[in-house]
């Protein structure tokens, strides 16, 4: 067997082994209920901001404390705490993807990924609103 073929095989084997190991590094999407069973483990939760509950960010008190309530896909509402500032246009978000872990019934997130409606769609609804007035 040629040397290059041997190297090629070794590399392929290493890649396969590496991939299997990497999958272990992948996180999962959970709901708050399943996250609670894996307390402390870093996971992702998808949901939407509960606009009826309070959203707290008061830099005069603590510039690194932001809390809100999120409703996950199963409909459960849980308090979320983020150590940072309030993201821009947070209230308008339609979907949130949080990275973090559950601690004592609260979700502590390290990253917030927001999805906002296209502003163009907003404008569209303004058109239709004009009709009624």
């Amino acid at each position: 067997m040629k040397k290059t073929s041997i190297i090629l095989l070794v590399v392929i084997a290493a890649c396969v082994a590496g991939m299997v190991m990497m999958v272990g590094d992948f996180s999962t999407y959970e709901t708050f209920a399943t996250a609670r069973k894996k307390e402390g483990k870093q996971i992702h939760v998808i949901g939407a901001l509960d606009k009826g509950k309070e959203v707290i960010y008061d830099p005069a008190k603590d510039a690194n404390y932001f809390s809100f309530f999120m409703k996950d896909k199963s409909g459960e509402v849980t308090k979320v705490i983020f150590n940072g500032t309030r993201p821009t246009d947070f209230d308008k978000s339609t979907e949130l993807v949080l990275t973090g872990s559950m601690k004592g019934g609260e979700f502590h997130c390290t990253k917030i990924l927001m999805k906002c409606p296209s502003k163009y769609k907003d404008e569209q609804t303004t058109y239709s609103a004009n009709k009624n007035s």
Partner: protein
Amino acid sequence: MENIKYIGEHLLPGQLGHFFSILAFVASTVAAIAYFNSVRAKEELKKASWLKMGRWAFIIQAISVFAVFGSLYYIISNHYFEYKYAWQHSSRDMEMKYLLSCFWEGQEGSFILWSMWHSILGLILINTTKKWEAPVMAILAFAQICLASMVLGIYIDLPGFEYRLGSNPFILMRQDAPDSPIFQNPNYLQFKQFAEGRGLNELLRNYWMVIHPPVLFLGFASVIVPFAFAVAGLWTKQYGDWVKPAMPWTLFATMVLGTGIMMGAAWAYESLTFGGYWAWDPVENASLVPWLTLVAAIHTMLAYRSSGHALRSTFFFLIISFVLILYSTFLTRSGVLGQTSVHSFTDLGMSGQLLIYMGIFTIPAFWLLIRRNKHIPKIQKEESSYSREFWLFVGALILMVSAIQVTFTTSIPVWNKLLALFGLKKLFNLEDFAPPANPVFHYNQIQIWLATVIGLLTAVVQYLKYKDTPKGTVLKKLAVPTLVSLLITILIGWFGKIDFIKYGAGFLVAIFIMLFASVYAVVANSWYIMTALKGKMKSAGASVAHIGFGLVLLGVLISSSKMEILSIDSMGMLTGYFTKESGQNSRENIMLPKGMPVQMGPYFVTYRGDSVGTADRSKTFFVMDYERKEHMEADVKERFTLYPDAFMEVRGQEGITPNPDSKHYLTKDIFTYITAVPKKGVVTDTLPYTPHIVKQGDTIFFSRGFMVLTGLKTPPVQHNNYQPEPGDIAVGAQIQVHTRDNREFRLQPIYFIRDSSFQSNVPDTLGQFSMAVRFTRILPNENKVELEVKESREPMDYVVMKALVFPYINVLWIGILVMIAGFIMSIRQRFRRS
């Protein structure tokens, strides 16, 4: 609807634009067919006439693409907001230079840009490729059909099959939403919705965003050229001839793509939208991967030219590079990245079309490679382990492994889709995979080893000769650079205090090994220029590029392992008080009340106020004074002012879009940006007194610091507000106040009983914080007292900011410039030879 005659619309540029996009589609189809037939034709005469036809058709399509570009730019620059594209991506208040950024903010504009680069490259290829023109141009024209289809916007309405082919950028607002009642009015353009467009995303209003996309797309566009050469070689069965003319193009594509990527990194660095120059975001990864495989291709091409080995891997690397360009296009434009990156394009519902674009090139190219595999010439004799070509091949493999790892993790959303598609998800009861919780470390822990190997190979392989190297000579030649590199590594480690232990000691060891590898790459290649090439810079292109690469690795390593956050909330005492959680994680934001200096690392930073920008009214500048001094009263060693800015609540947006300002030094950059400001016009009234039951030595926290009850004093220290009368029993609470900016104050609220029955107190205040403390009760049984604290929180102007230090980032930028210079030198050298 049809009968309404609208007032004030400018329909001509849109009609022209749409006409030319259809013409481009048709002409590129004609060009592709003609060039294809020219390759297939047996007779010379037929060959020539098809070729001529293909040539003219391609020139017509090139002119059409320029016309499409011109029409769309005309619409944007004249603010014709009746067009959806202009309305969605531009606005009147924008500075001139950003009109181009508006052009490529949308998918359609960036496809047109890409197509325009293809056209320009095609015109050059027609004039330079000679016998390779027909097959190479057939492939390029074929790509042009695909790109032109992306901006067609034609509805195919066959029975049982409805599809919208492409997205037309020349569509009018009223065509996009024909049912909106507003369009019943012929004079709809008078309404305020159409007086102003939605404008460019604030984050993209940066000069890098004017230049980064065209360069990146030129990179994307030029990858097809070496791919076309390789496929042409397989197609016409001239398996090796194409390598020489393709070489300068491969170098060019690699250089431009790399420059484009790093311009994006420069933008990310300056705007801090990714928190630094590289964040392993899927969007960044998608364009890095084809660059890695292209670099691999360059090296196997070199190996082939000098030894005849590695031709098959050259085919593979060039084909996979272009396929990965198409894959990255699919990832960033189809919406599949949705939950993993915010930086991708908005989804236009064209994923089907993008998949076809990818498949239509991938499948035939690989099919051709597999079918012709047997015929590709190869050398039976095995390469020696002491030969350069062997190690070039190993290096290319390592680059491929790196590309595989990055692609594997970036493609997580694709794996989820595939698993669901094939029913495997249900079968194994799998949940959707999510990206790693700490993506940066996930990539770094693997890539650091690959980068180390690449760095070492970069240093050593040039000293090997093709075919075989006399043993012993290499070690002799390498002795000096190896020792010098070891010494430099130790010095950097010693004086640079590399002690990055966040991810454990193992990772620190990896950092040191990679530090050596990158220093070694720089030193060994410099040594090579001095000794082996004897300073002849004409043929030193490769070594210069390698020095640049070594510097890039070094810059990446040092700047990321030594990055520091200055604005850590420094009040250690307060950690964990304000909320019990806040102390557990990094507290990277700090609040600065106006006019009050706050310590951050060696600096005292004062927020002086804000002002509105002159060029762009929606921008607000914040004046931040930096003073470097030992402590509050010490002499100022250095003073400078930074002006970070932010777009404030533009177009109904809530919150701000900040843009940092930085102080550049040779050895470090200090970044400052505003993360929050108080809402204007919201008046918070004075808070009520909050009671605290404390005993001596207890601490009470308030928003700007804490206070300690040090003792009770009878009678109290003489106080202005309190006039003692005979018979009074008065007690003064001795309070030591410590504020967040490290200042000390004393307060003494007084509690007294007059005439044995009348209880009263005299509060004490801290004027500059609008804070008052009163002493209301004594609880003798518990040996405690009640103190009440009140803070007035308004009016107070403040900003919340973050400050970061990136050290030695200039090593990275210099490395990139050196690398580009090396590429240019190599390209010139190849052109001179050919």
